[in-house]
């Protein structure tokens, strides 16, 4: 049981670290973009291992799908392939190795100072704990911000399902967003709109430039 759960962790951790190293090491930008996708898929696997199914799937869709295509599109558009003969300067190589190592040492120090051993293990999400939280959603004795959920709601039904209770991850994220983060969500929508307009303005060729330059 224990190895069953830790093996995927090491597999996906290895994938994300190896993808990161390839992203830095490969000279061809297209290979770098594909290595970045490898790394993001590894991270998405780690998210799913942490019971964050929705975030893991969104990570694959947005990063490995949309953003990777955008990067490859721009690389192909600019037609860059003359980086093979670029030499790294020794000063920047030194800085590029020492500064991340310092950061890593600091992270290790912080981890050493935090929870250790049994305390750092993840608690299980089982049938009993899901039942308790489902009751809490119906009674709503937490913050008085939202109306209590009814016993017909998808969250309650999924949490207290008799045969196979499941974690209704997406429903709970939606519940949290619309209950506590309604205004930030609207700000995010405005941000996306502004970004869309900004991209159109930026990539529009100004009329002053000569049309021969293409």
């Amino acid at each position, binding site marked *: 049981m224990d190895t069953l759960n*830790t093996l995927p*962790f*090491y597999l996906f951790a290895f994938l994300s*670290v190896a993808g*990161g*190293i390839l*992203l*830095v090491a490969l000279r061809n930008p297209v290979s*770098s973009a594909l290595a*970045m996708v490898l790394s*993001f898929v590894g*991270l998405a696997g*780690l*998210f799913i291992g*942490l019971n*964050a199914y929705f*975030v893991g799937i*969104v*990570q694959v869709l*947005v*990063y490995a799908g*949309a*953003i990777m295509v955008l*990067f490859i599109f*721009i690389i192909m558009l*600019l037609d*860059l392939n003359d*980086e093979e003969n670029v030499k790294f300067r020794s000063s920047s190589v030194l800085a*590029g*190795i020492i*500064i*991340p*190592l310092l*950061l*890593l040492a600091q*992270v*290790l120090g912080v*981890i050493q100072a*935090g929870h250790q051993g049994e305390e*750092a*293990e*993840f608690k299980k999400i089982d049938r009993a*704990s*899901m039942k*308790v*939280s489902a009751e809490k959603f119906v009674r709503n004795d937490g913050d008085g911000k939202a109306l209590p959920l009814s016993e017909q709601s998808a969250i309650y039904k999924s949490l207290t399902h008799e045969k196979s209770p499941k974690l209704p991850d997406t429903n*709970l*994220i939606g519940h*949290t*967003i619309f209950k*506590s*983060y309604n205004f*930030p969500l609207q700000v995010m929508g405005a*941000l*996306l709109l502004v*970004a869309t307009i900004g*991209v159109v303005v*930026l*990539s529009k*060729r100004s009329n002053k430039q000569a049309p021969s330059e293409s």
Partner: protein
Amino acid sequence: MASLNEFLFVSGLVFAIGLAGVILRRNIIVIFMCLELMLAAASLTLVAFSRFHLKDGLPDYNGQVFVFFIITVAAAEVAVGLAIIVALYRARQTINVEDLTSMRG
């Protein structure tokens, strides 16, 4: 299940690799990809703590909502950043950061 510390270590390692890429590489598009990698590594920390800090027996979904917002902002940022790179390439015919020194003063 692996412990919290292992997740935090992997997150720190991926973040450090991204930082190394930002310092080492000269191609501005690859630097941009390394920045995205650093953002995603930070998200892993948020998700790990969200799962670790159980609230009423469920993960603390505030952390995962935060990750959702990070992904949204990263998508907008990539779109705008790549548009800026294309505009830069049109103006200067290069994306090597060592040739782009007009802001050095």
